[in-house]
């Protein structure tokens, strides 16, 4: 994780002022909000499709959709897309390890069918 920070050093330190300019504006924000709403509606909608929820595509679809929402909020509302690389490292590093940990825990407890 820490290694990533060397990059943040190479990166020419921007002043907070510079950030503010990079911040997206109302135009972006409303589109983001719209997309988020649409995806949420979509998620709930497929929840009510009995002949879809029974298929093995149901869970992956939901996971993808929420992953997309997650990413959008992080990139635009938390303006990680525009901000210093350091912040990206501080967030994505731990997030990745955490996700790996969750997955391996589910394996170990036999939820992902690695052992009966």
């Amino acid at each position: 994780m820490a290694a990533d920070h060397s990059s943040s050093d190479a990166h020419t330190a921007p002043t907070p002022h510079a950030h503010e300019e990079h911040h997206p504006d109302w135009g972006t924000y409303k589109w983001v909000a719209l997309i988020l709403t649409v995806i949420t509606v979509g998620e709930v909608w497929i929840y009510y499709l009995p002949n879809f929820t029974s298929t093995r595509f149901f869970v992956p679809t939901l996971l993808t959709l929420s992953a997309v929402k997650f990413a959008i909020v992080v990139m635009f509302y938390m303006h990680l897309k525009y901000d210093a690389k350091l912040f990206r490292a501080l967030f994505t590093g731990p997030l990745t390890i955490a996700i790996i940990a969750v997955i391996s825990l589910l394996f170990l407890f036999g939820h992902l069918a690695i052992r009966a």
Partner: protein
Amino acid sequence: MATTVAAPRHAVGPARYESGIWSWLATTDHKRIGQLYLYTALAWFLIGGFEAEIIRTQLYGPNGRLVSFETYNQLFTMHGTTMIFMVVMPLSAAFFNYLIPLQIGARDVAFPRLNAFSYWVFLAGSLFMNVSWLFRAAPDAGWFGYAPLTTPPYAPGPNIDFWLIGLQILGLSSLAAGFNFLTTIINLRAPGMNLMRMPIFTWMSFVTQFLLVLAFPIITVAVTFLMFDRFFGTNFYEVAAGADPLLWQHLFWLFGHPEVYILILPAFGLVSEVLPVFSRKPLFGYPVMVYSGILIAFLGFGVWAHHMFAVGMGPIADSIFSITTMLIGIPTGVKIFNWLGTMWGGSLRFTTAMKFGIALVGLFTIGGISGVMHSSPPSDLQQTDSYFIVAHFHYVLFGGSLMGLFAGLYFFYPKITGRLMDERLGSWHFWLTFIGMNLTFFPMHFLGLDGMPRRIASYDANQGWDMNNHIATIGAYILGAATLIFFYNWFRSMRRGPVAGNDPWGAATLEWTISSPPPVYNFATVPTVTSRYPLWDMKSAQPAAAPRPAQPAGRVPTAEELGIPMPTPTVKPFVAALGLTIAFTGLISHKNLPILFLGAATFVATLYSWLLTPLEPEH
């Protein structure tokens, strides 16, 4: 480079500090907080050591009956908990506090008041857990408190409550400190000190902070579950409700293994500072040392289940965790070889600090080797929960962490106190520790291979364990004696020790450019760094071999004179920590809501007034 050094005037004895209890309660100075951590940890070291002596006395011969079995279980539980959370971690924290700002050329940490808060919370937590002794209800389920032994049906008393709440409080302290030092190291480095110019101790501390802030939330959750089970009747570990005891084990070790590296990496850092100075050679393969540290930390999150090879996770999981564990052996080995490389071809001066540093290299190797033996599940099946494991982790934590921390204590004592520690007594301390340590823990390898289970309050005769237990106990007494010599030396040298001057060792990093002890503002002018070893660049090729005579008495200018804005002293962190503790006390005393709310209110109110007051007087 002249700008690197403060005005070349040096204090004899301590620079001007205000004294008195209040000045300590209200301090936000990282150097004072560092010392608070240091002395608190040393006090707990005495207590934890005393617990160990009782344990060894009970086990001297078969069927020992010095203490009751219940008391024995409390003793080994508290010995482990104390040594890990109240000795090794805070001793490391003492060095983080004292050294990091000095090493990176900063005037203080990023959040001085949060720093004070961390200390007071730590003090509260450690006291909280040990108060249990007064109620004859000390925690008694082992330092990793496996459920369901800790759940209400099997632990009705308050013992486990003390343990849980104590851990929770200590965890908060570590987390707060973690964020603080992360920010400090990222953001307060002196101009020119890029990451690859950072002193190696600061680097290892940096890695440790990541482990802290990522691992502690996990134990916080695991402990919270157990608290809820005990206080509000939830079912997280309630066997009757179908709970799975392995949940606790996985969460605990998911924290617990990174915790192992939290305990060892700072010591590695200290030794990596000490060895080069007394070899008069730069650290061998600095970049590799840095990357191996990062790698160890990263892999540290992927090996936790090797503590659980006996629970029957199945062959696939066993194999995976076995291999990841072996992988972690590689960067660790690299560190050992790089230390050897540092000494190789050097000009070694065997000061006490150096001796302890070398001891770490030699003894940690043994712990590492037995560690590799455990990484193989079939072999581990015979060794886990036996005395072989006890031997292993004492070689890692005593032979590793503590040796490194002692090296650091002797090395930085002059910087902290302005005087040198007595080398002759130091030598006695070292040799007795070294001999006692090996006498105590090496026979435990044999005890384990001879089938002696861990955590037994007493064993039967004719098991073939008597001789090795005799030796181990005698070793423990020698260790006790060594420790007393250390404390005597420590306090004696404060008055009698020769005056150190700025740089008694001929070291290379920024902290040695300023007076000992440093002025409250550390650096009169913030230094500009152009290399990894600024002092060696500044000085003639010959680093000073022997401690230099102290410079003629002069006065270090005060912050006011230099016009350096200093934080206003405040007791708010102390009060906030107090409120927090009161709240938790309310929780343990039969969920006494008034006390709970009183504490919480105090905490929140203080926090507000703290956050809404600027750190320094407006200018």
